[in-house]
């Protein structure tokens, strides 16, 4: 398989996976490749490497995508038939925008935006980055005419946070909890002086009354938006499960990220969300085969001298250990997936931090399986 196949008939591509596996660069390379093929593509990155952000001109403010100059890609040897738009997500600002859209009036909007509990919610709470990433995706889908949206996901320690966190936040906004506070006899009313119940008295004793007051102001203000949040949650879930959406999982070949990718895949399957494939970055390929590292040293010693040849052989043996590990982990991954759809990208000598680097990854992502084998030979042998 390759990315072109995985994206066929898709409008939205979500790159998921645990932190530190190269999600951002993979997402950027996918978007770049789809744009080269002729689509109008927007990529939402979460936290790109500074040099890559510079290369794509991502440091502009605005929280909106902007067009990347096609000449940059042509200079790196990749002609652009379509357009690549790129942006860097600003979670706090995105959350504020959601409130602005959903607030029934200016006063409610200002009450919420100025509330300290809200400020905590919008910037600090686990899950707010995940929630806003999806909110941004939804907004771009609604308000723009891109052929393809590519979403990089937040660098959660646990890949699943991305799927769980928006739901947790949504449940909060859906109001089951909120309504308890907003009922005529609910917490908000009691804080304002009418509360006498036993439970409430104990709660007040634990938290202090000021905190309850701030909370109730927050709950009241946000209460007017419950329906808006509910409606939006339904729409967002529809979007994620849409047949025109695809999840590509990104991982590295170590045990833990592979475990997470398998877990993530199960979770997607259970939630009936569309799975497109797994991209395994930084794979060490076995080049030793059945050969003996000792023979390698002997063969090279004439040319390199005994000592250097010995070190070359030791280094080769060490790489072989990693290649074996990677092979076993990828086999395990393939055995768990119902349909093994895996693209492997070799461990390149240099980190990707510019458009030229993106094109190196891009070649592997968009090549046919056969062509990818040839590319691998070029790179490693």
């Amino acid at each position, binding site marked *: 398989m390759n990315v072109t196949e995985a994206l066929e008939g898709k409008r939205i591509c979500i790159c998921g996976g645990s932190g530190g596996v190269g999600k951002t660069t993979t997402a950027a390379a996918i978007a770049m490749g789809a744009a080269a093929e002729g689509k109008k593509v927007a990529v939402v990155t979460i936290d790109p490497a500074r040099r890559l952000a510079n290369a794509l001109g991502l440091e502009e403010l605005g929280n909106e995508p902007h067009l990347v100059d096609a000449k940059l890609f042509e200079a790196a040897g990749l002609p652009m038939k379509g357009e690549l738009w790129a942006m860097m997500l600003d979670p706090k600002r995105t959350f504020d925008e959601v409130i602005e859209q959903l607030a029934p009036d200016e006063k409610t909007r200002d009450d919420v935006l100025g509330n300290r509990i809200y400020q905590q919610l919008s910037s600090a709470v686990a899950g707010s980055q995940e929630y806003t990433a999806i909110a941004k995706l939804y907004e771009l889908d609604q308000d723009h005419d891109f052929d393809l949206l590519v979403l990089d996901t937040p660098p959660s320690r646990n890949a699943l946070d991305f799927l769980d966190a928006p739901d947790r936040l949504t449940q909060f906004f859906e109001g089951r909890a909120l309504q308890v506070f907003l009922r005529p006899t609910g*917490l908000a009313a009691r804080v304002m002086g009418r509360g006498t119940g036993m439970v409430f008295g104990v709660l007040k004793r634990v938290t202090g009354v000021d905190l309850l007051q701030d909370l109730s102001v927050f709950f009241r203000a946000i209460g007017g938006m419950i329906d808006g949040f509910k409606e939006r949650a339904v729409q967002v879930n529809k979007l994620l499960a849409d047949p025109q959406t695809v999840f590509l999982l990104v991982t590295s070949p170590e045990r833990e990220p592979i475990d997470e990718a398998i877990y993530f895949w199960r979770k997607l399957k259970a939630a009936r969300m569309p799975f497109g494939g797994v991209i395994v970055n930084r794979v060490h390929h076995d080049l030793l085969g059945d050969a003996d590292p000792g023979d390698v040293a002997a*063969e090279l010693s004439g040319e390199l001298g005994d000592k250097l040849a010995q070190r*070359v052989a030791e280094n080769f043996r060490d790489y072989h250990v990693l290649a074996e590990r990677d092979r076993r982990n990828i086999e395990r991954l393939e055995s768990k997936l119902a349909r093994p759809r895996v693209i492997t990208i070799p461990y390149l000598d*240099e980190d990707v931090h510019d458009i030229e680097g993106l094109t190196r990854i891009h070649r592997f992502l968009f090549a046919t399986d056969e062509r990818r084998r040839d590319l691998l030979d070029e790179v490693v042998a």
Partner: protein
Amino acid sequence: MLRVRAESSRAGYTLPAMTALLDKRLVFVTGKGGVGKSTVAVALGLLAARRGLRTIVAEVAHQDRVAKVFGRDDSQFREVEIAEGLYTISIDPQHAIDEYLRLQLPVKTLADLLSGSRMFQYFAAATPGLSELVTMGKVWELAQLERRTRDAARYDLVILDAPATGHGVATMRAPKTFADIARVGPIANQGRAIHAMITDRESTGVVVVALPEEMPVNETLSLRDSLRDGLGLELDRVIVNGVYEQRFGGRDATALQRAADTAGTPTARAAVRAALSEHLRARGQREQMARLEEGTGSAPVLLPFLFEPDLDLSAYERLSERLEAEL
């Protein structure tokens, strides 16, 4: 060279004299996702326990990574001894809230009344940041000389395997945020007490783990800024994981370049190619470590890349010995 500027005082920033890391009561281990925070937390824990400190490595919400290293499955909010003098606990917010209530309310029936009530469940679920707050509360409790939970013994050192950078700082800030909002009352008092402890350099230290790559280095530097601006905290140590030793120097590389074309068999050529890769990657790493040192104004502690399929307990032991030599 990397380790020469330990005493540097560039850009007006002098590395303050500090209590040695393991003499503190509480050490946060944070860093970008995927850099090996848990590995470093466990290695530090092993080192501390070996020095005779009764040590606990605490992790947050459903990780149980530490316990797994020692072949345990699930520590479930219990303090479990995993090696001599070394304990672990997995802190989940629900247990932490229940425990907090029992500590705040001297009468058990009142605590049960509250934690059992639907209104309280909703309150807990709906209050943004409450999970972070009670997590910090539990960490603080673990680090108390007089433990507040019943039958709990004192630890000499608490190591928190903290959430990744952004959320890590938010978690550490939660007590202050709540203290500011609540102003008076038990949460305000406790929030202030926790905040006072974690901002006291005598008792609390912050270790940031990085990899010698661009992104983790960037994140380490921006984490340093947000800890300073948001909490008034300074980094005590930066630990770089996965460092390649320099196997091939510049002259070697020249010889290898030549051999890459002339070596006879494909296997020999591949071996030469792997050596050249190693040379390039090690060089890339050194550039990043130089940036890190330049940015933080002090030399990071380096842990070697281990060419092993999986890190087992003996690998953690070796890393902890390496830390011992460096700390």
